[in-house]
């Protein structure tokens, strides 16, 4: 079929047209392949984390709970008196005295005593763990292995990420360690980073976009902001160490406000970390806010000026309300970067082992990524499992933050 009447100067044949189409299809295939690559990488990432977060574990109890049954009543059903007796029989007198000292036994309830028995008497220990894939496909081999190596151990299917994991504090036993302190640390530092960088960043973006003249100095400033966005984060860590931790130690340790945590009394605190992350994301927020402001059509500004509005009235009533959705979207990206940062916080001095919740901006801290890093470098296998579990928690926290920002953004863009 030849729909094309021959025209002077146009000598394309059907075959040549087909070649043009096939070239287009080739390019389309490349694009599809590139997209597929991205999807595969994401799926592999998720699968790896999930693979390590769930699976069979060989759990060995120091004391078999069967031995603690009284007249056939299991531990769960026993009265407080029976539990106290079991505890006293199975721990040293010194440890029992310490429990009494921490909080008198008489004031504790049955659930508390039960927890103590779980931790100090039964004291389950994961002697070996298998990942999710092996647990599904090689259960028989695992059972044989169990018989050979750990005759006393019990095979349990464990989900390393669970409510207790989120709620518990850091511990040197991976079985009972949790990420509560790290989550609180992450939330505190990110909040401070946002509080600092969002207003400063948006104000700078408004100035550069709406007020600053297009001259040599302002172009230099703009170029430098663009470059700062690409500076490696560890350099921001060194900056934070020099300025917030050292130079401003009197403020960042809280001494100047009489709020110092006696156990720190130096600048390695939440506020130093938050400000460092704030400085880190500041260029990103400025650039994204500038793009959002640039996207507001000029016709709106002209309309506003045309009826005798000042520049500030124009910015406040027309430019910012129309840019706010874009500013929030950009800030989501910036905050997502900040929440995953580890290097600058390690430089600043995230605590390697901390069991107390942060109480305020002047407390010692650790954050989720720092915690994950510390767990992955440990030799014991179970720490790698809880590192994967903490990664899942971090991802969920990130999704929650992003979802909040998206809800906020949608609400603001609807109002227009």
């Amino acid at each position, binding site marked *: 079929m030849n729909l094309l009447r021959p025209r002077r100067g146009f000598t394309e044949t059907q075959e040549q047209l087909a070649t043009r189409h096939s070239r287009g299809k080739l390019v389309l295939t490349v694009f599809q392949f590139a997209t597929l690559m991205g999807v595969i990488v994401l799926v592999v990432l998720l699968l790896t984390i999930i693979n390590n977060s769930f699976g069979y574990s060989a759990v060995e109890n120091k004391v078999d709970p069967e031995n603690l049954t009284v007249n056939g009543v299991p531990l769960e059903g026993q009265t407080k008196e029976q539990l106290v007796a079991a505890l006293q029989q199975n721990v040293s007198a010194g440890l029992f005295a310490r429990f009494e000292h921490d909080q008198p036994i008489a004031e504790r309830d049955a659930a508390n005593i039960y927890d103590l028995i779980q931790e100090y008497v039964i004291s389950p220990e994961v002697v070996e763990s298998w990942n999710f894939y092996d647990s599904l496909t090689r259960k028989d081999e695992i059972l044989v292995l169990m018989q050979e190596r750990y005759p006393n151990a019990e095979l349990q299917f464990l989900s390393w990420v669970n409510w207790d994991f989120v709620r518990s504090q850091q511990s040197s036993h991976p079985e009972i360690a949790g990420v509560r302190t790290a989550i609180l640390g992450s939330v505190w530092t990110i909040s401070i980073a946002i509080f600092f960088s969002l207003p400063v960043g948006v104000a700078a973006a408004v100035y550069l976009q709406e007020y600053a003249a297009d001259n040599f100095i302002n172009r230099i400033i703009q170029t430098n902001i663009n470059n700062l966005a690409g500076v490696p984060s560890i350099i921001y860590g060194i900056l934070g160490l020099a300025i917030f931790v050292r130079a401003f130690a009197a403020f960042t340790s809280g001494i100047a406000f009489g709020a110092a945590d006696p156990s720190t009394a130096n600048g390695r605190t939440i506020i130093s970390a938050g400000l460092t992350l704030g400085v880190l994301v500041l260029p990103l927020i400025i650039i994204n806010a500038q793009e959002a402001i640039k996207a507001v059509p000029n016709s709106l500004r*002209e309309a506003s000026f045309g009826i005798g*509005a000042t520049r500030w009235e124009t910015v406040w*009533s027309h430019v910012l309300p129309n840019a706010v959705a874009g500013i929030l979207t950009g800030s989501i990206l910036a905050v997502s970067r900040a929440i995953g940062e580890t290097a600058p916080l390690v430089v600043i001095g995230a605590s390697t082992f901390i069991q107390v919740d942060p109480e305020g901006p002047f407390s010692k801290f650790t954050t989720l990524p720092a915690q994950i890093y510390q767990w992955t470098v440990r030799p014991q296998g179970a720490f790698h499992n809880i590192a994967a579990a903490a990664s899942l928690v971090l991802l969920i926290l990130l999704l929650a933050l992003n979802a909040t920002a998206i809800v906020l953004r949608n609400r603001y863009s609807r109002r227009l």
Partner: protein
Amino acid sequence: MANSANGNYAIKAENLSIYYGNFRAVREVDLGIEPKKITAIIGPSGCGKSTVLRAFNRMNELIPSVRTEGQVIFGGRNIYERDVDPVEVRRRIGMVFQKPNPFPKSIFENVAWGARVNGFKGNMDELVQSTLKNAALWDEVHDKLDQSGTSLSGGQQQRLCIARAIAVKPDIILMDEPCSALDPIATLRIEELMRDLAKEYTIIIVTHNMQQAARVSDLTAFFTLSEDGKRAGMLMEYGESKQIFTRPEKKITEDYITGRFG
């Protein structure tokens, strides 16, 4: 060149030249605008019509590279003098743009916002109602004042923009091709509205549409590019529209309005 019946001008450009960087876009324009009349500015593309119009309320200043020479006399003063506030100038000389650009706010707020920032302390409901009536829009929108201005049709949006301009009680309204994005029926309504508004306001309109200029304007200024190769816009002929469109004095004007170029 500019001839006025009585020498009483609402606004007057004297020896006005406008540069974009080093390029002179408009050359030595003298143009006196008569009060409460509609003055049309016509001419081929790129002859500086819009630039001259925007010089009347200092809108060109929003473009960084623009430089203005000469004077624009308004209320006995040159609005380009150092101590004249451009915000005050623009409040007195409003503007309607080529593409309808209502604020993405409610219809009510579109009209009320300008009045509010300019310190209007009276009854806002009354002001919005009377303004929308004057802009021939009240009957269409009185039951949906809280809807977004952008939800209206193109013609309604443009009338809303006119309402927005007259809400701050200006002396002069500048219109930069206000109907070029509208269909013929919406255009007709705007033209009727302009005739009404001319009883109270001085209107200057830039238009590409010569029938429109002939229909609505009292006076017409014809701009064209200088023929010395520098392509600066200049005023060729200015006078009563009737005369310009029937017995133009210059050959080039006649060529343009009869469609021989442009």
